[in-house]
């Protein structure tokens, strides 16, 4: 019999974390990473200490959004490694810390191995909630992550599915729900990003709550710094919804 010690290590690292939110999207380009950053800021403003894990190995981008690429990161070792603070009360664990900013062209089982390793080595001390930014698509990596989370985390584990309001995108989410539900029976959150006008959402009942982040024509310009992002219309509206609907997350 062969056993993998990393599952128990990951369990240990997440032992004091209250909630884990894998942030997922069926398609790319829906603004998932930007939304992950905005959610981290909104949860931080609620007083939670936030950890963010970038598992998009071949296209990690959170370090750009948090401004981490502008400084050298010294790895602090303590029962694994303690991810660096990227903002007051927000820590980021990313593969780029170990690849000197480069991408990690891992395939198939290597991707799953790398994510499990990151979960096993990241010491989330002083962190209340963890957001996990996943690569786009509902593939083996994302489904395995959902399955893994149910085994390593005993607190709240609630996937955040990000989509755009377009009919095709919403239909893709609807079609993927069966797969997601097969590995995660619990509650889920839907975020409709780049929202304009009204929408006809037939699957509202499948989610604990639905957040709508408005289309913000100036958002790209705001991504130069967190201070700018905090001033954006999109963030202000997301923050309002997160703060007025705290039970969505807890």
């Amino acid at each position, binding site marked *: 019999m062969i*056993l993998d*010690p990393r599952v128990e290590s990951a369990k240990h690292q997440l032992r004091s974390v209250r909630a884990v939110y894998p942030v997922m999207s069926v398609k790319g380009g829906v603004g998932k990473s930007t939304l992950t950053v905005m959610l981290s800021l909104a949860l931080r403003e609620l007083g939670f200490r936030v950890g963010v894990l970038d598992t998009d190995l071949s296209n990690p981008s959170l370090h750009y959004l948090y401004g981490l690429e502008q400084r050298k990161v010294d790895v602090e070792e303590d029962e*694994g490694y303690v991810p660096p603070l990227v903002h007051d009360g927000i820590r980021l664990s990313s593969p780029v810390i*170990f690849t000197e900013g480069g991408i990690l062209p891992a395939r198939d089982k290597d991707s799953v191995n790398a994510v499990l390793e990151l979960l096993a080595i990241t010491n989330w001390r002083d962190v209340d909630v963890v957001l996990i930014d996943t690569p786009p698509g509902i593939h083996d990596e994302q489904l395995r992550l959902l399955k893994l989370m149910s085994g390593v985390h005993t607190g709240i584990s609630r996937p955040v599915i990000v989509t755009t309001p377009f009919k095709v995108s919403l239909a893709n989410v609807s079609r993927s729900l069966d797969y997601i539900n097969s590995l995660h029976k619990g509650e889920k959150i839907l975020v409709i990003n780049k929202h304009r006008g009204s929408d006809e959402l037939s699957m509202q009942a499948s989610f604990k709550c639905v957040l709508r982040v408005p289309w913000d024509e100036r958002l790209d310009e705001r991504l130069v710094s967190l201070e700018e992002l905090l001033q954006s219309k999109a963030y202000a509206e997301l923050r309002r919804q997160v703060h007025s609907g705290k039970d969505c997350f807890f």
Partner: protein
Amino acid sequence: MHESVIALGIVCEIDKHVKSSGPPARIRVVLGELQNVDEVVLGEYMKMYLEEQGLSEVDYVFEWEKARFRCSACGYEWSLDELGLTDSERESIHFLPEAVYAIVKCPKCGSRVYDVLSGRGVRIVIEEKAR
């Protein structure tokens, strides 16, 4: 130390196995050359955690496994001995063995598309007693 959390994971797995199936005939803790854990430090942490779990009598051995790679483009196979990794690169790979793909190219054709055939990380091999 990274080794402490690896040791904790190993001991938790051994503990679960002993509780569910009783003590095995033999436990091998296989250490992949790529991850390059410090065997002495790992052993010290394992001793401590085994004692804490009341498993001091559990016996195990460490076994090292050579890291081997095979290029998907040209088929060349190589080992770590052929690479001149810096201390910083070794440290990165120690934490995240898959970082090797960002650091190492095939020594023959320069491709980054290759497989780690053996010696990646740490695994526990339980050999049951004959019934």
